[in-house]
């Protein structure tokens, strides 16, 4: 069955953890856009939600860093961070190990995809779920692309991974939704926190909305690091969603730099 829903959204921990410090009018517009994406996701009645995220050393470290990994468990837990720090209460989130395994088996035909039978969700997944499925009532299958510890997963491979993932999902009887979470330009957790390159973000989003694979995969890591910061490496998650939905146009629901959230806050959907 074709993917029933696809979109992208920001996941910076300040979105929930430092909510009270943002301009309320901008913050509420952003939140409402995220809730709208969530309502539309739920209207699509997915059997599972694939969340392609860029995790931040919650489960994977440089002693054994996979380029791609997918969860294969019946439940997960999150957030791994301090609940008060993230302002999200820790909970168990349902998964679907059997469905994960079927997806992984098919992915392995082209990708050496690692799997994990336990996974502690960090803000990269918990912040989006907080808005998209506030009742946590859709089984989640987490996917990680290495955006943190160089050498990083190449952009072209992230795109092709998404393309294969979309192909696999189309062959399944289940209704699958997919969300990519990450930042565009940002310098998180550094003295430059709050710096955002809006022009760079908008150029990237234009390419993403147009499903322009050539433009999306033309960035070098050196350019991204210079122009979009360490957080800019997380474009891999958005690019993977583009691969999974190749050729389909996107619609931007929200974009605005919110410095105290340390990212250009983004919500967008793919029209499938």
């Amino acid at each position, binding site marked *: 069955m074709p993917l029933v829903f696809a979109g992208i959204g920001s996941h910076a921990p300040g979105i929930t953890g*430092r909510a009270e410090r943002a301009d309320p009018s901008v913050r509420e517009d952003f939140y409402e856009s995220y809730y709208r994406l969530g309502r539309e996701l739920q209207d699509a009645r997915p059997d599972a939600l694939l969340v392609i995220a860029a995790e*931040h*050393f*919650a*489960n994977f*470290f*440089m*002693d054994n860093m996979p380029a791609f990994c997918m969860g294969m468990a019946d439940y997960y837990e999150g957030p*791994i*961070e*301090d609940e008060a*720090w993230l302002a999200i209460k820790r909970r168990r989130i349902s998964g679907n190990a059997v469905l994960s395994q079927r997806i992984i088996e098919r992915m392995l035909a082209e990708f050496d995809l690692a799997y994990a039978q336990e996974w*502690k969700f960090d803000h990269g997944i918990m912040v989006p779920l907080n808005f998209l499925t506030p009742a946590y009532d859709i089984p989640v299958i987490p996917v990680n692309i290495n955006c*943190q*510890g*160089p050498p990083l997963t190449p952009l072209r491979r992230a795109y092709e991974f998404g393309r294969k993932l979309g192909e696999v999902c189309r062959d399944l009887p289940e209704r699958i939704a997919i969300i990519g979470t990450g930042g565009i330009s940002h*310098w*998180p*957790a*550094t*003295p*430059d*926190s*709050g*710096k*955002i390159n809006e022009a760079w973000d908008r150029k990237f989003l234009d390419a993403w909305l147009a499903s322009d694979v050539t433009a999306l995969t033309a960035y070098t890591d050196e350019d991204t*690091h210079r122009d979009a*910061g*360490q957080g800019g490496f997380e474009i891999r998650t958005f690019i993977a969603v583009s691969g999974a939905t190749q050729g389909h146009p996107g619609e931007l629901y929200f974009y605005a730099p919110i*410095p*105290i959230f*340390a990212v250009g806050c983004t919500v967008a959907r793919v029209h499938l």
Partner: protein
Amino acid sequence: MSLYYVQKLIYHLNRDLYARQRYEDDFDALLGDYDLNEEELAAIKRPDIGLLYVMGVNGQLLMHYAALRGYAWDEYIGAMREGLATYGQVRAGLYLTTDGEGAV
């Protein structure tokens, strides 16, 4: 330099309840499990968040260690800026600063 082990220690403190308990019970014993030089040991124990940042500890790890040691968000950002002023530019890794000013 053993930046890798500095980061591994912090990774364990962030995610491993057993490591967190050992931190509370006998921090020196826990530190003995990692290949750390004198400067790294001192920076971790003090803690000198600014120096850890300059050493190249990834911010996605460091911000949680700072929180563990009682740093509020603004104090964490301030500590890194002080580190830059005291020790100079980041020595290794991805988390070098551009101008260290940010926007908040």
